[in-house]
């Protein structure tokens, strides 16, 4: 699996995944929670008070699709991709383990360890 290296803004988020901690970027000025991490708060434009706060790792399936042809030659299909609305508000993309998913199903985070020590969050029932 190819996951590009972090950059200056996303390094903190990826560092937490090494300890299987699911974090979200949070604005200390206005309290806004956003994902993916950015150099500014999209709610109040602050660039100084952004930090990573431990998140619940819980959410619900906003919508999903079962992919029957993988874009990566040789990779196994079918598999399920979902938009998940996290309890804290932001949407994230993830594969979903298992089958027969429905919109509204609750999910929680699990981890797929990467070769470089980081971990990719993968949601499940």
């Amino acid at each position, binding site marked *: 699996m190819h996951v*590009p290296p972090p950059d200056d803004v996303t390094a903190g988020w990826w560092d937490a995944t090494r300890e299987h901690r699911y974090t979200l970027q949070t604005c200390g000025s206005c309290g806004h929670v956003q994902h993916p991490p950015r150099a500014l708060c999209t709610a109040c434009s602050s660039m100084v008070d952004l930090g990573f706060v431990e998140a619940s790792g819980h959410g619900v399936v906003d919508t999903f699709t079962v992919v029957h042809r993988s*874009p990566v030659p040789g990779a196994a299909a079918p598999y399920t991709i979902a*938009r998940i609305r996290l309890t804290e508000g932001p949407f994230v993309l993830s594969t979903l383990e298992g089958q027969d998913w429905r*919109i509204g199903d609750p999910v929680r985070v699990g981890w797929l360890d990467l070769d470089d020590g980081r971990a990719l969050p993968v949601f499940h029932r």
Partner: protein
Amino acid sequence: MTGVAIVGAAECDLGSTGKSTLTLQTQAVTRALADAGLTLADVDGLATTGVSRFSTTQLAEYLGQQPRWVDSTFVGGSAAEMMVARATQAIDAGQASTVVISFASNQRSARSRSLGGIVEEHTPEAQFEAPYGPLYPLSYYAMAAQQYFHRYGGTREKLAEIAVAAREWALLNPAAFRYDAGPLTVDDVLAAPMVSSPLTVADCCLVTDGGGAVVLTTLDRARDLRHPPVRVLGYGERSTNTSMTAVEDLTVTGARESGREAFARAGITPADVDVLEVYDSFTITAALSIEALGFCGPGEVLDFIQDGRIRPGGELALDTSGGGLSYCHPGQYGVLLLVEAVRQLRGEAGARQVPDARVAVAHGTGGILSTHATVVLGVR
């Protein structure tokens, strides 16, 4: 209303051509100019995408031009509609007098399209979305369809009507890739191989070579040219997202705002539209666009399109060339929406001509419901 008109429109070779992108671009530009009764010597503005990193500069040099005005707005399938707005403003402002907007690709011959799309390593999507293996753009449209079905009780059967109707139109268009393919049924669409649920291969546009161009100039000059001027009555646009996780509600697209602005500028409502050309990259793309543009109410489109309403002879003439689904899809299909709208307004559409068409709307959609641009055109 603006003081600008489209005076030329043409396709390049379509289908499986074996030609280079620049050859197809050259065909599109020169044929559209010939249609207008003009030559490259009359052109002082050029707009295109999909040629190279400096798309319009590249094409201009290839054609031996040093334009006064260029535009390479790179927003996928709505680019040509946005370029109509920019070109109209440039002509109204006197920065250019005659502009050609073109697009062409040889993606079928070159086998250059991949299921996962193009992911740029430095973007947030590369770190946070691409690792999960979504098909790009298909999986996003699939998730929009899934959410729409869930919200409003829609079905794959009802959505399939978009593809079925597109085929009916294509059977009337000798230039269509599926002209000789015979009718498509709802059962055909449902039985086609599933790619990203709930969308099958038959919910997806073609992958072909092709493209086209349109020529714009001042209304004053247009009156001296060979065809009745097709006036640019209005335009509007919205950019909403590049990722799959930015938009709150996948059932409502930026077409709502782009359409509202374009219709207000033109002084029309959906009831005034005789021909509606919307980008049908997927069946759901067209359905969401019809609804967001206000041709029906929220949650109504899958019922609205039934009973032949969008087929030839129906109440709403939709995607009259056969669309990206059955006519031609070179990627960034927006320019071909304009070409077909012009032909309908001039009464040149042969067996698929919509009687007495006076107002046409071309609505482009780019990326993953990312960019939305609406153009209102009219004659008389």
